[in-house]
């Protein structure tokens, strides 16, 4: 295993940034999370996401097909929780309805695509984005491109094992983690408001 001190930081990192996994960043175990390439507790990462989302000038959520389509039990509930988070944090939402390279081009004002996520980020001047409900493979393809060419801070909330290529990533995300994140945002917002 490479024991590098590679950090997954906000870009633009360059022409072709490496996969963080190939630079020695490993995925967290259950109950843990990744912040900028280092393994931390899930609580710490949630706190950090809440901070970052509130600090951002133009934060966006990017829900993917697993959440945009009401295809199985539990999706609607999870989507509602994501919507609540967005409303509270004051973020806008741009969907990733599917993964196809779209012909002739996407409308970057209203959608995002994993093959060229940078177009949507540049167009809307997005400085913070949160992926949720995107199949892991396509999320990783997109997250590296974002790190390479934009200055957007990336979060990946994953239902499986997490994402090294996001600046912050939670694994096994369900309603409980979403509730904690919303609560952290509310708490920090309250502090900020006083």
């Amino acid at each position, binding site marked *: 295993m490479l024991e590098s001190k590679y950090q997954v930081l906000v870009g633009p990192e360059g022409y072709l940034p490496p996969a963080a996994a190939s630079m020695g960043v490993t995925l967290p175990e259950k109950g843990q999370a990744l912040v900028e390439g280092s393994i931390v507790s899930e609580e710490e990462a949630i706190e950090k996401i809440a901070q970052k989302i509130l600090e951002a000038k133009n934060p966006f959520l990017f829900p993917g097909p697993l959440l945009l389509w009401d295809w199985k039990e539990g999706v609607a509930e999870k989507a509602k929780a994501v919507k609540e988070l967005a409303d509270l944090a004051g973020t806008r939402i741009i969907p990733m309805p599917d993964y196809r390279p779209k012909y002739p081009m996407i409308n970057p004002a209203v959608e995002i695509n994993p093959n060229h996520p940078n177009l949507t980020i540049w167009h809307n001047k997005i400085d913070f984005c949160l992926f949720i409900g995107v199949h892991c*493979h396509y999320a990783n393809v997109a997250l590296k491109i974002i790190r390479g060419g934009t200055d957007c801070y990336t979060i990946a909330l994953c239902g499986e094992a997490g994402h090294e290529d996001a600046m912050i990533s939670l694994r096994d995300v369900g309603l409980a983690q979403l509730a904690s994140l919303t609560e952290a945002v509310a708490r920090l917002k309250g502090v900020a408001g006083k």
Partner: protein
Amino acid sequence: MIEQKVVTPEQLFFEAEREEQFITGSEAIREAIKSANVDMAISYPITPQSESMHLVGDIFAEGYIKEYFRGENEFAVMSSVAGAAMAGVRVFTATGGPGTLRAFEMFPTWSGSRLPIVCAFMTRGINSPLTIQPDTLEMAYMLDTGMLMLHAENGQDLYDMVLKAFVIAEKPDVHVPVGVFADGFFVTHTRDKVNIAPADMKLPSYNPNCAPVPAMDMETVPFRQMRDPFVMKSNFISYAAHASWQQEILAAAERARKYIDSLLGGLIEVENEDADILIIASGTAVSQSREAIQQAKSEGLSVGLVKIKSLRPFPTEQIRRLAAKAKAVIIPEFNRVGWLCREVKTAVDDTTKVVGAPRVFGGMTMPPQLIVDEIRRCANE
């Protein structure tokens, strides 16, 4: 179907009481597949692989596997296996030598498509001239397909690696194909003691809903989905998408390291690591090295052994660390190109201490004496 109890991988691999059987490598494959809860297996004959897939056919007839057929050639078989995997079932196949090369286009395609296929490769020589005899040359070509590669030393390894390969391949963060390689004839056609888990237990079934890509079944979102879409327009955006996709396949192999550690006890096994002379080998070259080390010991020479079990991902850091302490590193191989020697040379700091010998090929056995000769030479330098 035969009644089998579904148990966790940990129960099956580490807790269930095993029974010792005296069986061939081909039979070890059969025993592994019995417990692997495989949905479909597709076969095509080629020596020395055929017998293993005959035996898999037999257990299909007994009810251990739901579907089995013989395809029309290796390229077609690897394509059918890909179709089945995209539909969201667990599949198994095997080939070797010329069959591997006939099918070659499909291996990077499997990886790029994130298909958790397990394929056993019973290695043999490659034409021309025609030979059916053991030779590990085909593994050189497989190193950069994006597949994970495990190399079995003996029947026990083959049994454990095939069975565990399904679990490693199907991890949502890995989810790339695994090739389990065994040296044809030396492993497939010889009998050895193999400890086998009870055949009335099997792994949990594959869950396509945890996959990093959607199954092609019209039950999984998104419904507007091509596996896999063309990313080939002539612009930087397309190149960047393709590049990121390729990097993700390499990343998947990196993520497999921890699962190989926990399930197979590591990417390597080391004996006597502080010795001045180290042998680094994989497959049956490890067994020959063990013999040679015994002989060298009787001459008062202390030699360490590094058995590489996983070639992809490659134990780069471990090899670098181990080689740094040694005076010489001997790499015996069953092929003419010395692919393991190349791999080791890319990992170590000082390549001058790497001895790419002995090498035998074309079906030759490797008399341990050849390795002892190298040990003596290194000791006298």
